[in-house]
């Protein structure tokens, strides 16, 4: 870990060292495969996450086929349906979104945006990726083991998760837990890098209040993840003990299929506390990087500083802190002591206030802007709509008594897909359109991009908005077939079929996007170093794509915040962060 002789430089701020000793790749293998360059690691993370994410996408099609046309597809039975929802959920939340935002965007953007040459522990960073890859391989292997993957639902609630009434009880659950443990180990290695790089390797002049909100979002999310993932780790280890060694951490005395089991005395609710102590911060671990990135997208493409930067920073930090005291709102009907409901409903609804401020500031950034309706901007607009929608339905579920009828129905499914599925994915896609030119030196095709946006955004909205009403009607989640029930009108089945058709359409549109990614790599319009005319440091690199060590001979020096767009009196409508101030600056008086 201590390969660079830090003592020699300990007395000088790291940014002032002409060139921190970097690990220089010696062969093709160490340059592209076992690379220690954060940019390569970022691409490795992104590709792996996208690959396993595509598997989860295909699983969602299979689920939708079953839900839309129950009984038509004989190759999907109840067991498989449960396995599909479990793998789909787990992959999307952890192996795709967490890995993509932190491992992918974090690795690529943090060093570039703070003006560092690389992450501070490149070797650990490399290990982080390979452990993550191993976790993904272990997870994917459960599709091929006897009994298949676990079908316990992504929440893996015991006792069900390790009993024989659930598919994947032999191998699936054990490998799932092992994979999660690996993921957490790998993530911790990466997370240490992201945090320390932001703390210690910022370039000269990059104060915290000059950081782009992207870095704030990813940084805060990483800190939260480092502290929250141990809860999942502990829960996974304890459940592995229960499953493999026959302990009774979570297992009460029970009769399974008429058979008395050896377990006794354990508490399933204990698992739920541990799981959600991780699980709720996890929502914000995905959301905060999205918040940060979308702020920068909106600001850049509206040619206007982000409105209320300070409030945005405080809101990110506040949301991060509050998200550790709301976990039990996932457990209102779990049978925990009912008085917890008062506390957790209050904290949960309080968190709506900083979140709402962020939304207001995004739309107020548009006000009197110079809005370029580029593809990244369109995705940012799509994000605002889906996030506002999903955030507001969160106020239903966070309010304890309203949650009672709605919990475990399709309303919940629609809510969390809107707020932490569609909304962050909108940001991911917008961010890819935004930073692809920096990563490859070429622009993505605009026409294909707009087609991709409209189908994805409108389609996703048509999938999940009506789904809330199925939940309001009372249709429970995790049912492969709702079957006969007096309260369900036949029109509900029609709606389900409609949702399935839209879902498949949206799925196909993603293939257009993949085509665009590959096609533009070779045929895209060359972008130049700063195609969006943006202020932040990553656009000011001497080379595009940035070379090894990012900055050539000298590190950039930062003189201003990240949002000097359309400054009155300036020659251009943006001033890069590393541009020194001129003596005659008109702006000083212009700020209110």
């Amino acid at each position: 870990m201590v390969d660079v002789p830090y003592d020699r430089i300990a007395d000088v701020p790291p940014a002032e060292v002409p060139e921190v000793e970097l690990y220089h790749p010696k062969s093709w293998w160490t340059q592209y495969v076992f690379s220690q360059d954060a940019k390569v690691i970022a691409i490795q993370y992104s590709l792996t996450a996208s690959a396993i994410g595509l598997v989860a996408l295909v699983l969602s099609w299979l689920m939708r086929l079953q839900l839309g046309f129950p009984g038509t597809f004989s190759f999907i039975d109840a067991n498989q349906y449960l396995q599909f929802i479990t793998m789909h959920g787990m992959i999307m939340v952890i192996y795709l979104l967490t890995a993509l935002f932190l491992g992918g965007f974090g690795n690529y953007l943090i060093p570039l945006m703070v003006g560092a040459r690389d992450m501070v522990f490149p070797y650990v960073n490399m290990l982080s990726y390979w452990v993550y890859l191993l976790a993904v391989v272990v997870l994917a292997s459960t599709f091929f083991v006897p009994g298949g993957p676990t079908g316990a639902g992504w929440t893996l609630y015991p006792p069900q998760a390790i009993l024989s009434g659930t598919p994947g009880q032999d191998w699936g659950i054990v490998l799932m837990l092992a994979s999660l443990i690996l993921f957490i180990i790998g993530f911790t290695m990466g997370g240490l890098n992201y945090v320390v790089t932001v703390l210690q390797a910022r370039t000269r002049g990059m104060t915290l209040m000059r950081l782009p909100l992207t870095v704030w979002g990813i940084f805060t999310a990483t800190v939260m993840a480092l502290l929250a993932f141990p809860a999942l780790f502990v829960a996974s280890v304890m459940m592995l003990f229960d499953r493999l060694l026959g302990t009774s951490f979570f297992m009460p005395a029970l009769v399974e299929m008429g058979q008395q089991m050896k377990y006794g005395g354990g508490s399933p609710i204990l698992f739920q506390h541990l799981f959600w102590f991780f699980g709720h911060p996890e929502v914000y671990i995905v959301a905060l990087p999205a918040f940060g990135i979308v702020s920068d997208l909106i600001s850049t493409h509206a040619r206007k500083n982000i409105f209320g930067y300070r409030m945005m920073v405080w809101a990110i930090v506040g949301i991060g802190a509050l998200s550790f005291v709301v976990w039990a709102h996932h457990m209102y009907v779990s049978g925990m002591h009912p008085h917890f409901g008062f506390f957790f409903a209050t904290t949960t609804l309080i968190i709506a206030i900083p979140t709402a401020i962020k939304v207001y500031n995004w739309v107020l950034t548009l006000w009197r802007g110079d809005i370029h309706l580029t593809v990244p901007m369109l995705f940012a607009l799509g994000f605002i709509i889906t996030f506002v929608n999903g955030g507001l339905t969160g106020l239903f579920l966070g309010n304890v008594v309203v949650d009672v009828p709605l919990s475990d129905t399709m309303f919940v499914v629609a809510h969390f897909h809107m707020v932490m599925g569609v909304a962050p994915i909108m940001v991911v896609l917008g961010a890819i359109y935004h930073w692809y030119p920096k990563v490859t030196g070429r622009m993505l095709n605009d026409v294909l991009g707009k087609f991709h946006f409209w189908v994805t955004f409108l389609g996703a909205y048509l999938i999940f908005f009506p789904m809330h009403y199925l939940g309001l009607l009372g249709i429970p989640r995790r049912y492969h077939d709702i079957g006969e029930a007096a309260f369900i009108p036949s029109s509900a089945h029609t709606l389900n079929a409609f949702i399935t058709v839209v879902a498949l359409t949206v799925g196909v549109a993603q293939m257009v996007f993949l085509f665009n990614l590959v096609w533009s790599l070779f045929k895209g319009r060359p972008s130049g170093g700063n195609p969006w005319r943006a202020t932040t440091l990553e656009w000011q690199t001497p080379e595009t794509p940035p070379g090894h060590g990012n900055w050539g001979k000298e590190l950039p020096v930062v003189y201003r915040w990240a949002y000097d767009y359309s400054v009155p009196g300036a020659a251009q409508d943006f001033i890069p962060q590393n541009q020194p101030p001129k003596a005659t600056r008109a702006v000083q008086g212009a700020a209110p």
Partner: protein
Amino acid sequence: MSAIVLFMAVIAVIVGWWLSQQRLTAKPWLEEGSIDDFPGTGAMTLPAAKIGLGVFLAVATSLFALFISAYSMRMNMVDWRTLPVPGLLWFNTGVLVLSSVALQWAYVAAHRNDMDGVIVGLCAGAASAVTFLVGQLLAWQQLRSAGYFVASNPANSFFYMITAAHGLHLMGGLVALGRTTAKVWRGAEMPQVRLSVELCTIYWHFLLLVWLVLLGLLTGWTDDFVDICRRLLT
């Protein structure tokens, strides 16, 4: 969940204090210019490895706080039967204290530029840490032969699991210690060695502290302590 919530509160205070030093209320759009105008807001000047270790210790503390939370929630169930703590643990604790002392010795020697002292301290520290681990295994052995199996009671399960978690952390520390020793062996210069030794020492003290807390938990002292506090409060 009180242990982990308490720990999170401590973290929140530390983070809040640090952020309050960073001029978070400044209006950055008015503050154009070189950093020299705004002292104290640049990047941290500590070595990255030291900050990294600090962050890692926070993560590890979170992990152990969660184990403790789970322990204290589970022990209130009716089937809990506290297991007798093997006497060997006291010996092991003594060895772990020795290990920490040895590393502290190495740390002091490193600051005196006394390379021989560093080597002695590192080797003694490693040897006593290995002795501790062997002692822990023997303690498991004793418990097993006395009929306290991992699955026979949740108290036993927790004992095995928590001691294993602590032991694994110590083994990870031994890897770092081994690398440091190898570095000394290869004849690295003192400034390079100094930081590595310091980091190992910090980690060793941390693991000793964790072990003392865990020992208090496993022997039930913490319960008595909490009880006394509660009585004082009411």
